[in-house]
């Protein structure tokens, strides 16, 4: 159970990004956070694991207060929260396996991690996760050789190997094509269900949010303006969040999601990567 009370963030520039947010996320709930750019979605997520320091308010994860933690305790706390990033944020020059294992850094000592001597149980778990997302044959590939969708799946493995109680997901589909976006969202949803994980997903794509989240929270200028189930997201509500626009076509019918399994994902040709490498040589 994540409990946020009166979360406020004022940046050094003076911008008030969050104006006293109150939010409870029960265990096992997948929640989408929607809102226009600059509404403070990203700040909310980064305040929870304190990549951004909150100005005021309290955040409790399963009865542990996060905001007041000392740096050592904060590191132990961060282990309990997996984070998935917008541009994947994989360490590009490390291999897929090293990237996944970096999720265990909070559990092993420095020299152990520096010499890449992770416990066998971590390696087993890493292989199991990579197999789950269909990438175990790529373990020794360098991360920058992967396509966008593949990278994001590695990012998901890195977050899950932490064995977290909560997933913080920041715009997971922003750099992916529509089909891959759906696959990634479905994967996140399935994995949350398998592990009874709760998740907060920042997403700007309203349709995807409706498709995969159980609960939607709308944020506008640092304030919550909507909190409810996906099917009550009416044009009026969207206008309130984003401003005037024709929303009728955006709102999805509940059943046009054709079944699709992860096995069908053909590894997309990493065209961008090839070009980039060609440019380098």
């Amino acid at each position, binding site marked *: 159970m994540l409990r946020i009370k009166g979360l406020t963030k004022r940046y050094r520039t003076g911008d008030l990004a969050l104006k006293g947010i109150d939010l409870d996320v029960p265990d096992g709930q997948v929640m989408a956070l929607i809102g226009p750019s600059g509404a403070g979605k990203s700040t909310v997520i980064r305040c929870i694991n304190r990549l951004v320091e909150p100005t005021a308010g309290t955040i409790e994860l399963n009865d542990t207060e996060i905001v007041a933690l000392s740096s050592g305790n904060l590191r132990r706390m961060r282990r309990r929260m997996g984070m998935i990033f917008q541009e994947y944020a994989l360490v590009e020059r490390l*291999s897929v396996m090293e990237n996944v294992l970096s999720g265990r850094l909070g559990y092993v000592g420095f020299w152990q991690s520096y010499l890449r001597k992770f416990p066998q149980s971590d*390696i087993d778990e890493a292989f199991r996760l990579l197999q789950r997302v269909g990438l175990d044959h790529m373990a020794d590939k360098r991360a920058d050789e992967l396509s966008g969708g593949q990278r994001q799946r590695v990012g998901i493995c890195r977050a899950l190997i932490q064995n977290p109680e909560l997933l913080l997901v920041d715009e997971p589909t922003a750099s992916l094509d529509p089909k891959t976006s759906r696959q990634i969202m479905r994967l996140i949803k399935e994995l949350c269900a398998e592990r009874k994980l709760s998740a907060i997903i920042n997403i700007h794509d309203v349709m995807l949010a409706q498709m995969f989240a159980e609960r939607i929270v709308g944020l506008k200028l640092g304030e919550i303006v909507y909190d409810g189930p996906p099917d009550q997201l009416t044009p009026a509500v969207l206008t309130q969040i984003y401003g005037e626009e024709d929303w009728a076509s955006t709102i999805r019918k509940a059943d046009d999601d054709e079944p699709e399994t992860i096995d069908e994902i053909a590894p997309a040709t990493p065209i961008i990567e090839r070009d980039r490498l060609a440019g380098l040589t």
Partner: protein
Amino acid sequence: MSIALPTERRRWKKPPVIKRAWLRWTLILGFAIYLALAFGTISVNWARVWEGLPRGMQFVTAFLPPDFTSRWDEIAQGIAESLWMTVVATAVGIALSIPVGIGAARNIAPLPVYYFCRSILAVSRSFQEVILAIFFVKLFGFGPFAGFVTLAFATIGFYGKLLAEDIEDMDASQAEAVRATGSSWLQWINYGVQPQVMPRMIGLGLYRLDINFRESAVVGIVGGGGIGATLNTAFDRYEFDSAAAIILIIIAIVMFTEYSSGYLRRWVQ
């Protein structure tokens, strides 16, 4: 999708940086042998080093305070000479390196011209400024003229090579479009090539001005004039406090030129 199957215990080791094992081991062994040999042959006279340490301390203490006054006339003269040399050498060097650089660009120069210009660049770049200075001092006599010729010649190697590389990397279609208008060769260089390489070359020119000042401090050691001669004399007389003053002045001028040339480069580009 089935995930329940118990995965067999798979070992994982970080893959080595160099994949081919023989190559990896040859490199590691070769480097180890080299290090052993090198350490074996470097003879350090520790007694002499120990003896010299007090003198080192003396030198360090000379910085507090450095002596700017007692040799000020010589220092001022040296600095002025260095600055003249720097300015003239940079201007002349860049002017000369433009034809050499154009000649050394494979995509616009005919083959004989290319080889000729490339060999000029190779000679100019191979020799450290000081070696060049020794010869130019022999030819032109002691004083700033020899230093100026040295720095100008070294500038040709640096600037000409970068210019040639820049021209080789330029966008061929732009140059082609200008040629298609029926322009003469010079017009083609002026309209098709120059605009593409100009911004970077201005920046590099300022950068070279920097380098030339720094180098002007050493050509003096072998008789090429400038602040280096003053510094060398100070060392010969064991006047560490004057030497410290000169070194501080050099650092200050280098810092100043570096910052101002960085500023100018941003402004120009």
